[in-house]
């Protein structure tokens, strides 16, 4: 009996562990068997190739990581030609993360990706500036998230995941907008916004200044967001933010996550996903319990 089975909307997963977009690639098959993962999520792709931001792009802070990759990616065409085929050989559901700067662009990318059966679902990255709306990030405005999700939901029968940014006043309103518009599930959280400066020279450690903040340091913020969103929507949650071991994953399940992704920690330990799956398996076996019994079962609050 498989105690780790879980569902992410339309997808039935053999276990609840996947990888966070942008922290994992084909090269990781040097370390782990991709067929052991619950799912695989690609690095975010855009319509055209992006060369990304000038370096330095990374800086480690106390128990966290700042990154400013700038969505470097080979573009839709490059992805379909060179990346997608490499994942087609695995049974594990493959979820493609993509982003755009207009709703039409998102829509166009989805239409193209729809042609490929090896894709099981989409993670829509809405943390990017919306050129149609004064450059305000898509993901910060519930109305735009609604409109975008509605459009994409009408174009696909595959799993449609909207990935939310935590850098907003009211993530619940945005989660609900996505749910109302037909999203099958939600992914959260994307990185916080952070910065770091060299005290000797006053130089920003990251060339672009403001960067994305991830890793163990953001876990409490992620748990809080997952708890609030899961308490207010019915669709499942793919959670991430600072997971470094199976105990962290359990924390997320209790908070309401149906699936958990590991990001930054893949850099620390490239076998972390597999180790997490093994340990969770052992945990639920020893408790004679199924994963699904604890999802959202946080207690002790009043």
């Amino acid at each position: 009996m498989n105690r780790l089975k879980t569902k992410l909307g339309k997808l039935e997963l053999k276990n609840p562990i996947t990888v966070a977009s942008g922290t994992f690639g084909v090269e990781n098959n040097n370390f782990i068997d991709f067929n052991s993962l619950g799912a695989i999520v690609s690095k975010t792709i855009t319509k055209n190739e992006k060369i990304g931001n000038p370096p330095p792009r990374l800086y480690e802070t106390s128990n966290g990581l700042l990154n400013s990759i700038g969505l470097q990616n080979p573009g839709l065409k490059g992805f379909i030609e060179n990346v997608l085929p490499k994942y087609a050989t695995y049974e594990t559901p493959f979820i493609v993360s993509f982003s755009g700067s207009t709703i039409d662009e998102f829509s166009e990318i989805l239409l193209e990706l729809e042609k490929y059966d090896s894709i099981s679902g989409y993670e829509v990255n809405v943390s990017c500036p919306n050129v149609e709306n004064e450059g305000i990030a898509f993901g910060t405005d519930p109305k735009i998230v609604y409109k975008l999700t509605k459009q994409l939901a009408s174009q696909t029968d595959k799993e449609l995941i909207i990935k939310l940014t935590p850098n907003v006043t009211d993530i619940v309103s945005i989660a609900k907008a996505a749910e109302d518009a037909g999203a099958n599930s939600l992914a959260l959280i994307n990185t916080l916004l952070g910065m770091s400066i060299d005290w000797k020279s006053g130089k920003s450690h990251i060339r672009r200044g403001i960067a994305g903040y991830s890793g163990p340091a953001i876990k409490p913020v992620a748990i809080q967001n997952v708890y609030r969103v899961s308490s207010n929507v019915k669709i499942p949650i793919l959670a991430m933010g600072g997971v470094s071991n199976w105990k962290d994953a359990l924390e997320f399940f209790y908070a309401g996550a149906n699936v958990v992704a590991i990001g930054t920690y893949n850099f620390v330990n490239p076998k972390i996903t597999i180790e997490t799956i093994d340990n969770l398996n052992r945990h639920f076996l020893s408790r004679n319990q199924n994963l699904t019994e604890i999802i959202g079962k946080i207690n002790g609050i009043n």
Partner: protein
Amino acid sequence: MKNILVKIIENIKLNDDYFLLWIHAPEISKSISSGQFFEIKIAGNNFPLLRKPISVFEVKNENVGFMIKKIGRGTENFSHLKKNDVLDIIGPLGNSFELPSQKEVLLISGGIGYAPLHNLKKELLSNNNNVTWIHGGRSTNDIFSSDFTFTDDGSSGQKGFVTIGMEEILLKKKFDLIYCCGPKIMMKKCSEIAKKFHTKMFVSLEEYMACGIGVCHGCAVAIKKNDSFTYKTVCKDGPIFNSNEVIWNE
């Protein structure tokens, strides 16, 4: 590339700043080429979070040596490692130096830039090349065996930068190839000189790394492409690049 646990055989203190860490790694020692590096961390210790990229200093049968300079928390932690302590390493990573034969080769290094050239020199010699090595550093502690030595403060060898020695020797003698590793500013200057003398030069670059395997795009370096440029990864496309392709000011 593999992710394996290996034991420290010896940690040799070279001076207050530098040390040599020898590991026993039969699984990978034979697949290493000069110029490649490993992403290393102490097994079980996750502070700092990220692994540290360290070049291969030398391969001796089943053993691999890393020459390391203490500069921050990560390298400081490595300096305390003792025999039988366990390292968690990923590698070998990155591309490697072209290995010519029967050529005149010039090596230029600054500070810890010495490390990757040391194994290269051994291979160059056994491949019947002539090798000349100019090494420089801030002070005596930064100086290791080479043909010509420079220090910023004059405490060892000639006072001044390696670029002085490079110009001098290129005026006197023709080299087929130059390999260079050191601080960015030094590599930039050297690459201008190499250009002036129409000599092909390869540099070993450094950038902040997270994954070390080409998936995170964190270690970007600007590389010429047609009339413009693109970003390549130091960890996978590099760390060795033709110095003419690097955009030094980006």
